[in-house]
């Protein structure tokens, strides 16, 4: 399985990368980690005529704090995100999600920007950024713009990125001190893409849980926020089980010839149960 021919360049600045994108348009594809793109190219499912390798672009690989946000560069490798002290401190769900991706070698290479741009409905990072109300910073030759993660994913493998645009960073609001989180997924084997995922946060306000954010992934073309489906009375006794079922009932599950909708709904319920339990437990 060898890829079709392509021409190649490796710009070293964002400006050069954007110029290359502007020049080549839809003929070009950005390659970052390559963990999703390269298999597709080897199988000739994807045959871009021109590859723009952004691995050498400076300024895209840092994680820092800025304006009440954790800012992660698009080239942040999953392995680095998974062990970064700032990430664990201020967006632990994101760090945890990154640690569950694929396998050790995949995580050395795969990137945050690449995962979001690829927009696999079953992927961890798209779900996490949607759950955390992150904003995606997108650059082009006409300047930078921000898109809310909840608006970034349009459909399966499709985002709102235009052909001349490049993700440069993800801005994640810092986790509140009293915020707990849960992130659960179900896969057939260690490291496989999940059949379903649930991510949630819960903010404790003195004795009670004041707010719950919840998102589901892997069952619809994009990750979806289902806050509206979370019943009130968060955290009350015996609240979790019916809440999980309500969330599962509200999840729009797409037909899939290999796995029944009924089963996926059951998975969502089980995962929601686990994620809510975790979030409530560590909301202190």
């Amino acid at each position, binding site marked *: *399985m*060898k*890829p*079709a*021919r392509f021409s190649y360049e490796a710009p070293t600045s964002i400006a050069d990368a954007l110029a290359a994108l502007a020049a080549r348009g839809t003929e070009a594809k950005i390659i970052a980690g390559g963990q999703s793109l390269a*298999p597709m190219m080897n*199988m*000739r499912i994807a045959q871009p005529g021109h590859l723009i390798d952004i691995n050498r672009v400076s300024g895209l690989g840092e994680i820092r704090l800025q304006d009440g946000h954790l800012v992660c560069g698009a080239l942040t490798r999953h392995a680095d995100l998974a062990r970064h002290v700032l990430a664990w401190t201020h967006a632990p769900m994101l760090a945890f999600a990154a640690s569950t991706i694929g396998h050790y070698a995949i995580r050395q290479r795969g990137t945050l920007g690449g995962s979001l741009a690829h927009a696999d409905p079953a992927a961890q990072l798209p779900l996490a950024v949607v759950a955390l109300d992150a904003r995606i910073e997108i650059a082009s030759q006409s300047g930078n713009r921000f898109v809310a993660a909840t608006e970034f994913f349009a459909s399966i493998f499709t985002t709102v990125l235009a052909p001349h645009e490049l993700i440069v960073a993800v801005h994640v609001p810092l986790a509140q001190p009293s915020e707990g989180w849960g992130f659960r997924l*179900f896969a*057939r*084997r*260690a*490291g*496989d*893409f999940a059949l379903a995922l649930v991510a949630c946060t819960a903010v404790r306000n003195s004795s009670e849980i004041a707010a719950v954010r919840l998102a589901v992934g892997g069952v619809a073309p994009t990750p979806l926020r289902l806050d509206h489906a979370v019943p009130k009375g968060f955290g009350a006794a015996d609240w979790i089980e019916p809440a999980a079922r309500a969330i599962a009932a509200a999840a729009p599950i797409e037909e899939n*010839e*290999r*796995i*029944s909708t*009924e*089963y996926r709904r*059951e*998975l969502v*319920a*089980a995962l929601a*149960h686990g994620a809510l339990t975790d979030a409530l437990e560590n909301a202190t």
Partner: protein
Amino acid sequence: MTGSVGQALLRKEDYRFLTGQGRYLDDLAVAGALHAHFVRSPHAHARIRAIDVAAASGVPGVVRVVTGRELAEWTTALRMAPPIEGLHPVEMTTLPIDKVRFIGDPVVCIVARDRYLAEDAAELVAIEYEPLAPVTSMDGALAPGAALVDETLPSNLISHQTFTAGDPKRRFGEASIMVEAEFHQHRQTHAPIETRGCCVVWDEGRQHLTMHVGNQVPHPYRTQLARRLRLSESQVTVISPDIGGGFGQKIALYREELTCAALARVLRRPVRWREDRTENLLAACHAREDSARTRAAVDKDGRILALELQITEDFGGYCFYPANYVARVVALILTGPYRIADYSYDIKVVLTNKCGYGPMRAPMAMVSWIIEGTIEAIARKLRLDPIEVRRVNMLHASDLPYRMPTGETLEDITPRETFETALARFNIADFRARQQADRRRGIYRGVGICCVVESTTYGSAFYKAAGIPGSGHEAGWVKIEPSGAVNASVGLMASGQGYETTFAQVVADALGVAPQNVRLNIGNTDTAPYGMGSRGARGGTVGGSVLTLAARALREKVLAIAATLLGLNSSGELRLNLGRVERHLGGVWTETPLSLTDIAQVAYLDPLRLPAGMEPGLEAHKAYDPPPMTYSNATHVCEAVVDICTGAIHLQRYLVVEDCGTVFNPAIVTGQQHGAIAMGLSGALLEEVVYDADGQNRSGSFADYMLATAVEIPPIEVISQHTPNRKTPTGSKGMSEGGVMGAIGAVMSAVNDALAPFGVVADRQPLAPDYIRTLVRGKMPTP
């Protein structure tokens, strides 16, 4: 003197594999070699109307593009027509000419400077197909009016055999209790980490073909290859380099390999081929798709009075093996370790529009699941403990030798002994207490038991009695060189079994030298003796036996020479110990001045000093035909927890008590158990070749065809309880496939035990989580 047989010597092979210096097929550098690449059918079933290779042929770097028509001129077709009642003969051209029979069927071969180019050119080949209705299931194959996969046959039922021993119908009539059970095993494929490939060199000057190919049976392969190319066998050499896993997939002469050989001759350039993973999963060889039903007449204690088996197998579109080849063994040994005299079977094998079938490590694997599952069905119906039902039916040592209803003889096996040891080691009583406690907490834990009787090392008498052409013997030689170095060879080919180490131990012990000084030289048909190759868990027993015989013969010659050189009348008081001749004097073994080197020097370079009438040199060639069948046995126990909410299965503990007879190297034997068990578990839980209703194969990558990783496979405890086989020279029995049989049965049994409170039975594989949920959905557990 302590021998090395029975010691866990570290492997000689390891150094090269650990340091990246193995020589697998693709590692061979052959100057000027061209690369072959196959254009394959995207349809499950279609007539080939037209093939246009003009554009592809015009790509710079493409040397030749050929189709089935040209190959039919350069090669003969394969006729599969063994004289077996109920089996239809079939023929297969080298590449299809009239129609394709499965998605992935190779239609065109492009030969180019490199693989990248060849794949570019492949996109330019235009083939006009006329799709036909695909046959995609066993039921579909047998349905009236079904499309014919092979149009020379009256139907898709290519093989049908029945058999009766005793009077099962009468027993069914007499019995008051009947138990029925079903077993559906899914399609799987071997998926060795190294895919198929070959490199063919045609020497026009010598008119000689050398086929480099990782193949388990180099000599039978050579015979086939020569015949198909219309060459004399002495014009063909097959050389197998290191093999990255075979498991039965690397036995047949495949069409792609034959195509490369024909092209090498025509082009007078070396031609090589490397199969990619998608091709391997789609088009190499498939296995295991069988549906079985048993019916048992039993008494109130669960004693089986009669047993009936129906089995149907999905053989795919092409026959690289006789179609009855695999299923017949299931039917042959089904009664396993149980005393059953009245037995009948009905085997149907059908053709479908899927990749052709072949033996995959333990081709008869489902047999233990079937008989153990039948026992468990009996226990459920009668509300008896399945352990007790096994005890009621199982053979005692005093029953052996036992003649199975199919005529097979079981002897030198210890099923009851391994069974009782396994139960004790696992501590069933403790488990049941934990199981009960967990059930009250909503945790569903189960224990699975599987008693395995494994058929291994098929001898010529077996094939003869079965009407199958072919031999079960093996050949070997041992040579001592003038310097005293020892070389040995046998007609087997390794794909991970460690022959270079174990057979060095065997030869060393039988001869009287150190194993470090014995070198095994296999896989080259010019130097290795003609043998039947590695398959059917035969290698250890036939290889070890024939090398023992050859080494012993050589030892006798060495000691006879030593006696003469020492001026003794006979060699009765002499032995060879780690390369030195010793003499038994006054109750003690004493060194003599003679070393093996001294004797070899005389034998090769000073033959006038040899005993009168003795030929110079030190070589011994032997052949060995094992008993018709050599059985080994084991009991497998598996503990699993089933997550009722998600259907996930977690394996928590696995142990096997095994009796495989005399063991040459216990570490290697244990490693074989681990590997076989892992393959069985992986298959039962995760792997699945999926064809949809249009005959499209949905499992063409490792993302879809899932192999178990180190997370899904539990630690495996192997407890050895070896008793020798008295009919083989070394006392060994085969053992490398039984792990697959036991694992499949044990994990099914464990899951069913876990789900027992729900009153459901899993009767099909894989045990996918959504299947588990389908079983328990809406059911309330009873305590």
